């Protein structure tokens, strides 16, 4: 790609620039609990590698006097505690990235703080790290936090660990203390799957064994911290694995050129190699590896290149190109570790989005099989996941996904979960294994299709979804509507929320999670009835926008008619046909919509009925007019 291949082989007199050009890159994460001296250690590393410049030191002296906790000494922690908000609170609240380099390596440090947000931040920092520096205070040894950090590092797939036994000065540079902590940690970490644990006695405040061997620890013969970071061999094994290449973009500047751009996720590729495109399974051969520096003879793990194939096959963003001999599996149901990262808890059954590399797909998550206690590694029972919890769940995507287990490849097995309403990134997921291979789980192909069934009727299938507060008048309007549609010769079926709760959904209560599941089940049933060719009327409070959107997505925009039965709560409460509001006000009915549980009004419903002004019969006519407008019901009744 450049002139480096023309450089002479390593000699004893390479110019500094050449040496710097050749150096490698190590990404690591630092973790420690609140007072273990993590920020001080990073500040020390930056200072020792001359990243803290004179003018920064001048600013640091001012800041140390103002915010510092070290008396007259420079407080290195202030170098790394960046945002004004957190400096005033004296805590760091997010992941920060720091950079320093030596002659041998450039380092990217993910600095993650140790407070309530810890798991989220540490997971984030760990996903791009090759190594973890875990700090312990020599006075306290291995504590709960140490175990938690180690579990998370192990889960995210970090194989190299440095146990930095800090504040060794405060235990009189005691070898016995150091040995005891090291033995204690090794004992605990034995089954965490680390390739290597190196334990180093340091003092971040005074610099012992950070960049140079300390005279205070003559008994310590291992490497100092920086020397170890410079030389540690990080091997993810990705280069030995078969070729995998997620396509990011199709590059098509003009008729003659069609290239597929992406970054090699594992293995290597050369012109002439056969490849297979997943999930389609089509095969082709690499004709060229195109780059701005000319065509390449090969591309290896981590390189961003553009592949040109010998013959045209259907490839688009999200296609995985891989070795023909060793293709990946394709599946749509998995067991996965899910790390919840959002204030609002997980809603099992809700439709989220999965993003795995360039692939975006619809996703639903089951209630956790168990939640992991990151302090003890115990499995606990739970119905959902809340912020910073890690659970094992079944995840289902709405299309077949080419994948690898997270353990074998982070890029092909690690995904994020996005909330479709807020667009927030709410979770991280690690694919463990497929529960059902798509290859043997094709949808049962049906000869009689929804289209052929609906062709027998005089109308198209669809869903009329009436949403609104309890007592808004949904059921009354639904009954009028069904009678009217019946007169028009339309085959209907009415699903009423109250009735369904006596049967299909009698196991569900009124918590947020149960309400989500309630709507999901009714949506699925409505979907089946649409396949049967019916116009399905649903009368259900369905308080959450997201679940209603989920049903809309399920049955299809063109077949979904959302009707907002809009009744102010004062009026619904005055009507109170079932006496429920009175009960709720007395506190006998918790989680009552509109009282102590929210109702999210539709933003753009197909029909909005203001029940203070429109009678139920007129409301039914308005809905019929809309169904005609949507082409679900014909103008002249049955002859459509």
């Amino acid at each position, binding site marked *: 790609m*450049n*002139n*480096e291949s023309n450089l002479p082989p390593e000699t004893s007199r390479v110019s*500094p*620039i050449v040496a*710097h050009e050749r*150096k*490698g*890159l190590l990404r690591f994460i630092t973790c420690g609990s609140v007072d273990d001296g993590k920020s001080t250690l990073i500040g020390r590393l930056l200072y020792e590698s*001359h*990243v803290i*410049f*004179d*003018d*920064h030191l001048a*600013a640091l002296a*001012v*800041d140390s006097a103002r915010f510092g906790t070290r008396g007259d000494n420079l407080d290195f922690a202030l170098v790394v505690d*960046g*945002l*004004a908000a957190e400096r005033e609170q004296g805590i760091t609240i*997010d992941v*920060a*990235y*720091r*950079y320093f*380099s030596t002659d041998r*390596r*450039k380092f990217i440090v993910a600095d993650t703080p140790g407070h309530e947000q810890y798991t989220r931040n540490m*997971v*984030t920092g760990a*996903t*791009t790290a090759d190594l973890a520096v875990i700090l312990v205070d020599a006075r306290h040894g291995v504590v709960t936090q140490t175990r938690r950090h180690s579990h998370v590092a192990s889960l995210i797939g970090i194989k190299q660990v440095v146990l930095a036994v800090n504040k060794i000065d405060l235990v009189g540079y005691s070898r016995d203390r150091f040995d005891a902590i090291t033995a204690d940690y090794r004992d605990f970490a034995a089954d965490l799957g680390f390739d290597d644990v190196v334990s180093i006695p340091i003092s971040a405040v005074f610099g012992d064994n950070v960049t140079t061997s300390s005279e205070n620890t003559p008994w310590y013969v291992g490497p100092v911290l920086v020397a170890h970071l410079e030389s540690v061999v990080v091997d993810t094994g990705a*280069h030995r694995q078969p070729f995998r290449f997620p396509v*990011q*973009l199709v*590059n*098509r*500047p003009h008729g003659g050129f069609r290239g597929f*751009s*992406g*970054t090699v996720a594992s293995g*290597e590729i050369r012109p002439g190699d056969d490849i297979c495109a997943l999930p389609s399974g089509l095969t082709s051969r690499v004709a060229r590896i*195109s780059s*701005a520096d000319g065509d390449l003879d*090969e591309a290896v793990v*981590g*390189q*961003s290149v553009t592949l040109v194939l010998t013959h045209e096959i259907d490839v688009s963003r999200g296609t995985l190109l891989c070795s023909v001999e060793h293709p990946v599996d394709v599946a749509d149901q998995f067991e996965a570790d899910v790390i919840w990262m959002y204030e609002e808890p997980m809603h099992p059954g809700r439709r989220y989005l999965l*993003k*795995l*590399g*360039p692939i975006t797909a619809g996703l639903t998550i089951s209630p956790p099989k168990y939640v992991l206690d990151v302090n003890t590694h115990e499995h606990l029972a739970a119905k959902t996941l809340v912020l910073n919890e890690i659970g094992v769940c079944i995840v289902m995507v709405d299309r077949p996904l080419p994948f690898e287990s997270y353990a074998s490849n982070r*890029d092909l097995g*690690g995904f*994020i979960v*996005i909330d479709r309403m807020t*667009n927030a*990134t709410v979770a*991280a997921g690690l694919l463990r294994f497929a529960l059902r291979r798509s290859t043997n789980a094709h949808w049962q192909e049906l000869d009689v299709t929804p289209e052929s069934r609906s062709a027998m009727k005089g109308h198209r299938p669809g869903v009329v979804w009436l949403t609104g507060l309890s007592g808004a008048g949904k059921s009354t309007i639904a009954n009028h509507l069904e009678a009217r549609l019946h007169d028009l010769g339309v085959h209907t079926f009415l699903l009423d929320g109250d009735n369904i709760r006596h049967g299909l959904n009698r196991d569900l209560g009124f918590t947020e999670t149960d309400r989500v599941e309630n709507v999901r089940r009714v949506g699925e049933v409505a979907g089946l009835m649409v396949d049967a060719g019916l116009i399905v009327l649903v009368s259900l409070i369905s308080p959450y926008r997201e679940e209603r959107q989920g049903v809309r997505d399920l049955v299809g925009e063109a077949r979904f008619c959302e009707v907002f039965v809009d009744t102010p709560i004062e009026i619904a409460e005055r009507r109170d046909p079932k006496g429920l509001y009175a009960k709720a006000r007395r506190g006998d009915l918790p989680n009552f919509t509109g009282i102590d549980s929210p109702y999210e009004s539709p933003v753009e419903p197909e029909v909005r009925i203001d029940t203070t002004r429109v009678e139920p019969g007129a409301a039914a006519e308005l809905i019929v007019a809309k169904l005609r407008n949507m082409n679900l019901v014909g103008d002249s009744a049955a002859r459509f």
Partner: protein
Amino acid sequence: MVELNHLQQLEAESIHIMREAVAESERPVMLYSVGKDSAVMASLARKAFHPSPPPFPLLHVDTMWKFREMYEFRDSAVAQLEMDLLVHQNPECVAEGINPFEHGSAVHTDRWKTDGLKQALDRWRFDVAFGGARRDEEKSRAKERIFSLRSAQHRWDPKQQRPELWHTYNLRRAPGESVRVFPLSNWTELDVWMYIHREQIPVVPLYFAAMRPVVSRSGALIMVDDDRMPLGIGEVPTPRMVRFRTLGCYPLTGAIESTAATVTDIIQEILSSATSERQGRAIDFDSSASMEMKKQDGYF
């Protein structure tokens, strides 16, 4: 086993980021400040989409107070890059004659750059904007994401940032929201110069030491680039051997004394240097949290 060196890894990561941004945006744009980081970023863009030209224009938010050599360089460099260049000057600032001498550095920067940028993004309805900022430049940047969501008012909320995991980025946004993308997040000043050296990327000659007329003001060496600069009584521009580590508006950009006249000289200088790159920037000195506040207001 072939292992990529750090520059190759940084290059591959930046290219990956740019492709992700383009794949998930409607109207991307690349902010172009004429400096070395912009030069590297534009060069990476050429590589990312080769043999296609980068599928977005360059946008220069101009203040009319840049160094003359920057304007000359800009027009020739853009012609070589074969990319379209859009230039936006805040029309209110033009009308009011906003300048750093009468209005001060804070007002000057806020109106020309922050307001100007927001106007330009709105004017052309860009939904994704690449910027050349690096995390090593300044403390509050260390926590900036690679993909940074901005509200419809272009504001940055440090508490509402999305976690970034692996190399999988969430670019989903509501109507009106936009995303600032920083492909050089993980680069340092040294990396940038090493890359310029490796790739032979042309940069503005002001980065190289030469005799230039300067005056010393509050400890900073300010180059007298044209006759708009008012001189104090007895203040005489003196030729000195200087260069610039960063470039911006000439009255706000301090020179450093240096004899580094080539890219290799500069790399040697950085390897033995003891002052940080933003030291010459008047913008950061207002208060130690000033960058954070500017970012919240929409500065990039």
